[in-house]
């Protein structure tokens, strides 16, 4: 098991190398340059070349790639932003904390809303407890999150004046963005949980548990739910991974300084160091989340644990 975890963590190295390479490559084949973006279209070509040279943008892309890897590994230096001329790390880190906070809130909220409703819908299949939340989930899943966010803004900020509409100065600032990003995954959680539970409830061992005289409470929570957990956990992991990559829409809508909107903004300026550092961070987090999902799998299902243990090196 530990070998497996270490192996997975070591896999991060090629992942990061690949991420950096892909970004330099894509930046290289797309038109535009940072100096032109900063100085404007009327600036003379000489100035632009000069600035590009100062930034180090005009180097061949393989050289830039190896330089970056070298600085990152040896000096733990993620470079200087082309655009703000600040240390990339200093620029990204505070934003990343904001994004992680928001993502965690979103995931917790979506699980707390979606999973119990899904379990209940499966247990009370065909009753109102099933049909009403399920139909609602269908509707919500079809609504884009920016529409949802705007409705929230309109109701709670503009009409009721209860919640602040932008910034991240206090906890109340997080409420609406967290809701906006958590409702669609909550609907997805509901549907995943429901189908997974329905499948698990029909299993023979659930009938065995009933035949033992186990009360319904134990049958559902101990026998059925634990076996239905795997797909649900996968879904939660994917949600978290997606939200850590930045909820660009919600960040833009509520003017939250998160990592998603930062990367999107800097793509216009071809701010390679910021984009790369941001993407590395996202890739690392995503890998860790997925690894956590796998470890939880092994914890829940002894068959998977046995499989990990059997795997050699």
């Amino acid at each position: 098991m530990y070998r497996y975890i270490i192996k997975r963590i070591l896999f991060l190295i090629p992942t990061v190398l690949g991420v950096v390479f892909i970004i330099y490559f894509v930046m290289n084949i797309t038109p535009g340059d940072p100096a032109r973006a900063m100085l404007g279209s009327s600036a003379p070509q000489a100035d632009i070349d000069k600035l590009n040279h100062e930034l180090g943008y005009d180097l061949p892309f393989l050289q830039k790639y190896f330089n970056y890897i070298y600085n990152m590994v040896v000096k733990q230096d993620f470079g200087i932003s082309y655009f703000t001329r600040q240390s990339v790390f200093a620029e990204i880190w505070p934003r990343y904390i904001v994004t992680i906070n928001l993502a965690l809130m979103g995931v917790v909220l979506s699980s707390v809303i979606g999973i119990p409703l899904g379990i209940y819908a499966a247990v009370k299949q065909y009753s109102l407890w099933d049909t009403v939340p399920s139909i609602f989930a269908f509707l919500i899943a079809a609504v884009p999150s920016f529409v949802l966010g705007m409705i929230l803004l309109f109701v709670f900020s503009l009409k009721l004046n209860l919640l602040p509409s932008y910034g991240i100065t206090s906890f109340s600032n997080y409420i609406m963005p967290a809701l906006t990003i958590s409702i669609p995954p909550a609907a997805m959680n509901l549907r995943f949980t429901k189908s997974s539970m329905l499948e698990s409830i029909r299993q023979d061992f659930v009938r065995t548990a009933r035949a033992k005289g186990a009360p319904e409470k134990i049958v559902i929570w101990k026998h059925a739910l634990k076996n239905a957990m795997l797909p649900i956990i996968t879904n939660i992991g994917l949600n978290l991974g997606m939200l850590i990559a930045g909820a660009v829409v919600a960040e833009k809508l509520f003017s939250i300084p998160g990592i998603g909107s930062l990367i999107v903004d800097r793509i216009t300026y071809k701010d390679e160091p910021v984009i790369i550092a941001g993407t590395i961070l996202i890739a690392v987090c995503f890998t860790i989340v997925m690894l956590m999902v796998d470890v939880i799998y092994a914890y829940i299902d002894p068959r998977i644990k046995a499989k990990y243990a059997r795997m050699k090196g």
Partner: protein
Amino acid sequence: MNELILDIDDLSVIYKTDLETVKAVNGINLKIGKGKTLGLVGETGAGKTTTALSILKLLPENTGKVTSGNVKFEGTNLLEMNEHEIREIRGGQIAMVFQDPMTSLNPVMTVGDQIAEAIIMHNEGLSKGEIEKRIDEKLTMVGILPSRKTEYPHQFSGGMKQRVVIAMALACEPKLLIADEPTTALDVTIQAQVLMMIKELRNRLGTSMLMITHDLGVVAKICDDVAVMYAGEIVEAGTVHDIFLGEDHHPYTEGLFGSIPNLSSRTKRLNSIPGLMPDPTNLPEGCIFAPRCKYCMDICIRVHPNTVFDETHSLKCHLFDGKLRRDKQEGKSEKQ
């Protein structure tokens, strides 16, 4: 027959969906004496498992429904019990061993925990040590090393899993054990082992048993009484002696015996009963076996036969209408 432990009277069960109504069990009568073993024989889809599930009220909630009849366990009607009362019975007084040991154990719980669950459910106030002791006892009883209780079902072979299921069922020393084709999913050498174990445990613990099977060999080995089920009805019932050695048989029972391959005569093809079981959504008006019966008469197609009795032996066939004594009282509930 001496004191009855289980008395099923005129039980009918349907499965109802939006599209159709399946008549799974149609007015059956079954009696199991204390300490006796009844074999319920019939082909797949005859309603054997449905009968067993309705005894414990484990029919699928949304579709399965008992439409008539009583299931009396030591005199009390199980069908009238509420959820709480039937839970006391399940696992405690009546336990069930299911057909497929591969799927009837929870894959994410250790076998020890699963046995413990049955024990705790029906014996409140046992200390941890006592429970552990009981688990060890039960596992030893079915021939599994107690040290394996911390293992998970996937670490056991099929035969071993069925032993665990049996240990679980016998954990609270039930008065009645329902074994629903306990050996069907196992391979032949393991079948014999498990069967002998069931027989031995039954004799030792004095448990009454309802043995559901389609294997007449199993019946001959361990049952006292036999009921032959076809398309939701009991077409013939009696002691093992009546069924295996008696003269008169329902044509379906004859067919069942006829389809056992004979070692002494070499035949190219195995015998089988021609045709298929009738569609349970649309049962024939007359005798349910008439379409496949080689003795089929005019009356068989029109009139549903009544049960005729000869002491312990009962038959539901027009062939025997005049020959055997007819019991009016029992017969009336069989009319449809």
